């Protein structure tokens, strides 16, 4: 399996993503500079977290117009799996690969903590190693993480089974109390129509090692290796 991690000016979870991918794949991914218009052949493209272009204008808005993004969009439309984490999710919505937008958190403050997520699908390349409905613990770290789309879009996402994860309680109950940022319908991550593009605010790459007090993120990378090798 070959993976590429796109590095934008201001990306800061690129190394963390590369470490997680290398641990799962046994080889390092290619780090691709945003200014490159060429993208190596990749079984997975990962857009990492961070503050591309300092979140100026809108989170992810400038990065979505980087030279390399034209090729990312082309590959995504041709079926190459794309994973956008945190700022990567914001870039995917700005690039039009996923619907909706990530707005300022309801508290108006940055929030960094572990949250619980309910796995809404396990029939995708990203989540096959999880149980359906499994409750997993991932960290969030964002100021603009409140997922917003109009009611029709939200209904369509749910109707097409495109919600990947929802913020939940330990019991799996999807409640307002479990929602860290005011996301509509507790949505933490969504897929495109074909289930090959996943955008999510929580950080699976941050919990892949018992020393970091959790390993729930590991299964996502294991799923990718299993289904893409």
């Amino acid at each position: 399996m070959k993976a590429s991690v796109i590095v934008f000016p201001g990306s800061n979870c690129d190394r963390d993503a590369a470490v997680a991918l290398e641990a799962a794949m046994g080889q390092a991914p290619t780090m691709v500079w945003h200014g490159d218009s060429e993208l190596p052949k990749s079984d997975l493209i990962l857009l990492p977290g961070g503050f591309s272009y300092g979140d100026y204008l809108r989170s992810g808005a400038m990065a979505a117009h980087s030279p390399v993004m034209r090729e990312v969009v082309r590959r995504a439309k041709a079926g190459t799996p794309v994973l956008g984490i945190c700022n990567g999710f914001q870039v995917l919505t700005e690039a039009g690969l996923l619907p909706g937008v990530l707005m300022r958190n309801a508290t108006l403050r940055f929030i960094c903590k572990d949250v619980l997520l309910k796995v809404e699908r396990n029939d995708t390349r990203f989540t096959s190693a999880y149980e359906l409905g499994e409750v997993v613990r991932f960290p969030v770290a964002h100021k603009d993480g409140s997922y917003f789309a109009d009611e029709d879009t939200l209904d369509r996402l749910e109707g097409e089974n495109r919600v990947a994860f929802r913020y939940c309680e330990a019991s799996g109950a999807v409640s307002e109390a479990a929602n860290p940022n005011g996301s509509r319908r507790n949505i933490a991550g969504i897929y495109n129509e074909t289930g090959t593009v996943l955008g999510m605010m929580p950080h699976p790459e941050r919990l892949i090692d018992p020393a970091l007090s959790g390993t729930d993120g590991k299964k996502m990378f294991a799923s990718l290796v299993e289904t893409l090798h």
Partner: protein
Amino acid sequence: MSGAAKAVRAAEGLSEELVAEHGISPDEYAQLLKELGREPTLTELGVFSVMWSEHCSYKSSRVWLKKLPTSGPQVIQGPGENAGVVDLGDGQAAVFKMESHNHPSYIEPYQGAATGVGGIMRDVFTMGARPVANMNALRFGAPDHPKTRHLVAGVVSGIGDYGNCMGVPTIGGETNFDPRYNDNILVNAMTVGLVDADRIFTSAAKGVGLPVVYVGSKTGRDGIHGATMASAEFDDASEEKRPTVQVGDPFTEKLLLEACLELMAEDAIVGIQDMGAAGLTSSSVEMADKGGVGIDLDLDRVPCREEAMTAYEMLLSESQERMLMVLKPGAEPIAERIFKKWELDFAVIGETTDTGHFVVRHKGVVEADIPLPALAHAAPLYERPWVKRETLPVIAPEDVKAPKSILGALERLMGSAHLASRRWIFEQYDHMVMADTVQRPGGDAGVVRVHGTQKGLAISCDVTPRYCAADPYEGAKQAVAECWRNITATGAQPLAITDCMNFGNPERPEIMGEFVGAIEGMVEACTVLDFPVVSGNVSLYNETNGVAIPPTPAIGGVGLIADIADMADPALKNDGDMLLLLGGGPGHLGQSIYMQVMEDRLAGAPPPVDLAAEKSTGDLVRGLIKAGAVSAVHDVSDGGVLVAVAEMALAGDRGVMLETPPPDMPAHACWFGEDQARYVVAIAPENADAIHKAAAVGEVPVRVLGTVGGDVIALPGERPLPIATLRAAHEDWLPRFMAHG
């Protein structure tokens, strides 16, 4: 800014008022004339004013700072560079420093705090290190002061936005509320970086005819005279100084970090210095002085953000995210390529010379021509008069009222402003980015893994201002000891410290006496604990209308854990474990949190620190952790033993059945006394004998406190305190305060 603009227009004939406005005393001006051998130009006056300011010259503190121990086999670089460096073995080193941004943060909390964080990170990556952890030590006024909430919100948000965007985890710190900081808050930020020990960069510009290169952001009119502002006390008009506060751009700094590290991997740099306080002036003077050369600058080539900037403004601007480098001959193209890739300004603005002078040209005019020693070494040096503080009497435990219920008092203490959870603060900081944070905020020290290894760096910031206010000498000793203890409690070997010396106006003998007392306490503690000072910062004039802050020598320490598999933390993990108190004392309640919360007063002497006991107890604890003999460890500090136990219970979400304490002291002194050199440890009961024996060797007292288990804290004869109730009290205070007050 208006002052600066007016000054430029004033041009010839420098009036006494103008000299005074530049913070230069008549005596200092006489010395300036002697050094220069003529009248200065206005630009030169500006240069002298910043280089001779307290902030840049340490003129009041230098004679005392020299007394601090700064060496040891673990020290690679002591004070004098951008940051200190300690050896981590295996060719790796940690680079760290703490710095204050007090005055700007009071005037404009968001930008003041943000640029403080930006500045300290630049100090660390200037030396070639990648920043891996941030900490901060914050002091605010009383919660009921009308400005406190606004200041907390702005400072925390500023620190968070800057560090979060940089992608450097903020893994801990400390926050105090005290009315004595009402008009002078303290914002002290610390950064720790990692570097290969043979790839450390310094600022010396050794060699003549070498290109002097400016990189980073463009120069604007922000922050002009920031260093001078930080060298004067506040009055009622201080908030008009807002234009002298710099504006931060963490995105540019992130680019600057990556570009600098990329260039540092090449063989291109002779010396590098960040443009911090006093910007272009201070950085070029320091580089030339350390390199033993002269320097010529052509200001026409400086990238400017605003039009028609004068030489005076360019030299004194404190625009952020800028660096000055001296390159090897012919290295300009590779440097330019890297900085252009990162979309940063790059300009050759001068060269090193053999003249020994600091020469500045602008629009064909020589704006300054000053012999470098006049700026670097001839800066005034004061042995300010000082008076020793009278020591306060020790207050007997019997003279502090006992509570109706010990557990009721515990609940009150844990829910007070002083001990309440700081979660509202640290959750606004990304503390997990870089995926090496192995101990998150809320414990004794933050711990980050040395990337790609099993080694860990334990980092802690400490000082107890109420102790320092009562006795600067004992208080400073305690600050060093508590930092050493917090690092020890993770299992780390403490290596070295950085300091941030926050005090009032040193021209007042009683304030200078506080400074001297604190230095003497630090000297003693650092020496006995083998915990040398490798970097630091002095912030004086933290006072308003003649009322000073409590003396606040903040200590930031770094320690090394050989293998993070052996790391300890405070969370109780196993029902049935025994809780032991290691270390003894008389139950000292003077200056305690108990006295402050329950009696609404702070009186008497602070707890004395027995450094020999500190060392033997700490060495015992570290040995027990390494041997795997303890399942949880917590240092005993604010609030005493019972607060330490409660924090361990909350961290592990487990209850504790306490035993009735021995009758040799009042119960409240036993549970809430703040005697030093103590730790609470949890152990498997079968290890008890071995631990008693090990403690006996170092003559460390051991007391059995109770047993882990259940979901309450129970004490014979009292109604049990549910962990859930305790947690609510502990967690609710700060969010509620920030929401409503």
